[in-house]
């Protein structure tokens, strides 16, 4: 049996130098040396506040930040001025929930989300619905872990849906949703669409223009970048007509005593000092991923996922959740072991330096749908290899022994 796949970049990740099987990339990815260096270099050689001062350092910092925006936008096939840097994916979604939903929704309107959303794509809409009198509706996850486009059509036929908010790749089930089709059907029904790409951008080629959604949100730290930076791509006419989200420095054009006017896109939505070093780090992460090639990243993760799906059933009493068809899923595998609570699984695996996540994965509606309080989840990225999966399987057998199963 092969012990490595063709992609072997583990040595690029300093934190993985020790004896560790890191299988929690869906929570956050590890960072390659190139990203750590880029952030460190920025603070050593280029740190200044951006957009204002004219001295050389400030010019370097501004170029680094705006250059990062260009490359990040290009990475996912979107234009630069409508690519907004936020703090994380939640902040990106909240931007739309505040700047769009609170001004556009009224009683009788509905927002359609799915059962498999992360709380970050549910709670902002609940709050907006509460403030506007609108209501949330849910697309249900089918037995095979996928969504039904027929059910989507039925929901859209209600004529009350103003926004469809759906996840691109589920952080629990791994399901890869047909987001292009979802966006197209929403548009045909006169609804906007927002796609949460937090789990998709890190692991597969994504082209936001091809998806054709109105908003696309993702976060840097799951894509080998640093924490503290997320991205919102939005349709220009919407971003132009929407009110700002957070008021403050740099997002204005002119500030009067009672009224102000707004800066151009994207800065209208970037109040206060920006996450400059974080953008530089994300830029380096994107370059790193592009050098590998997103097709290769996707193939690597699919190969590991297939291997995990093949080997996990060797563990007695193990139940897998999510689609089994590899074309319909990403690199996160959720499971439960009979007689072993997920938290005890995570604890026992942790002792063997096998890092997995246990819990509700910020997806409580989905847990209720699956009928479990929690699952254990292993998720993969470029630095993982078959040995990590082997260690997972061995550790699961050991955990069952500790529990005398």
């Amino acid at each position, binding site marked *: 049996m092969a012990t490595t796949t063709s992609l072997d970049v583990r040595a690029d990740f300093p934190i993985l130098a020790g004896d560790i099987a890191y299988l929690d990339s869906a929570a956050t990815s590890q960072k390659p040396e190139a990203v750590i260096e880029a952030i460190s270099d920025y603070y050593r050689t280029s740190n200044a506040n951006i957009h204002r001062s004219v001295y050389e350092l400030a010019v370097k910092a501004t170029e680094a930040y705006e250059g990062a925006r260009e490359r990040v936008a290009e990475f996912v096939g979107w234009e630069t001025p409508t690519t907004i840097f936020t703090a994380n994916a939640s902040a990106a979604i909240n931007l739309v929930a505040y700047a769009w939903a609170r001004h556009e929704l009224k009683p009788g309107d509905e927002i359609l989300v799915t059962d498999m959303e992360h709380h970050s794509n549910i709670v902002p809409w609940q709050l907006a619905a509460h403030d506007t009198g609108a209501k949330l509706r849910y697309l249900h996850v089918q037995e095979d872990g996928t969504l039904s486009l027929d059910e989507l059509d039925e929901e859209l036929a209600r004529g009350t849906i103003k926004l469809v908010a759906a996840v691109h790749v589920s952080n629990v089930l791994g399901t890869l949703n047909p987001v292009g089709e979802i966006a197209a059907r929403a548009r045909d029904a006169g609804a906007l669409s927002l796609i949460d790409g937090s789990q998709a951008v890190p692991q597969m080629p994504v082209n936001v223009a091809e998806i054709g959604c109105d908003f696309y949100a993702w976060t840097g730290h799951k894509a080998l970048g640093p924490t503290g930076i997320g991205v919102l791509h939005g349709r220009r006419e919407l971003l132009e007509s929407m009110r700002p989200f957070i008021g403050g420095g740099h997002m204005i054009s002119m500030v009067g005593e009672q009224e102000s006017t707004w800066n151009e896109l994207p800065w209208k939505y970037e109040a206060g000092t920006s996450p400059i070093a974080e953008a530089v780090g994300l830029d380096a992460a994107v370059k790193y991923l592009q050098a590998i090639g997103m097709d290769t990243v996707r193939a690597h993760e699919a190969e590991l996922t297939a291997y995990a799906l093949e080997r996990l059933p060797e563990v007695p009493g193990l139940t897998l959740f999510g689609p089994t068809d590899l074309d319909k899923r990403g690199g996160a595998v959720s499971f439960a072991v009979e007689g072993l*609570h997920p938290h*005890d699984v995570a*604890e026992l695996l942790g002792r063997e330096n096998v890092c997995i996540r246990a*819990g*509700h994965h910020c997806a409580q509606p989905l847990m209720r749908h699956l009928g479990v*309080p*929690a699952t254990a989840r292993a998720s993969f990225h470029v630095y993982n290899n078959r040995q990590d999966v082997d260690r997972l399987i061995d550790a699961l057998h050991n955990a069952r022994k*500790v529990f005398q199963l």
Partner: protein
Amino acid sequence: MDELYRDYILEHYKQPRNFGELPEHDLEFHDKNPLCGDEMELHIRVEDGKIADLKWHGQGCAISQAAASIASDELIGMPVEDAAKLDADWMLEQMGIEISATRRKCALLNLKVLRGAVTGDPSWPESE
């Protein structure tokens, strides 16, 4: 032998004591640990100011279930007034194992529910 999952912890987990419901009870409380989704419900029957009978049910990890099972034996017969004063140290002592910070709430969920039932205070128990 495992330091955390000792035999008696696993026994309590697999065959919990006083597990179930009391159709007729004087005090009850239901709570959960939002971090992990563990849930627990407690029913208490009071006689002469004492816990005459107690049943609990819920779902959770071995630590949370064993803690509830272990505590349940100690609580039956205890004056309600005394039960209201039990703190985190008492529960951790009953467990007889070293509980790390990340598992502390697992071990304390049942005490949280007990305090909710006897005092109405649903806050997490602390050490003295």
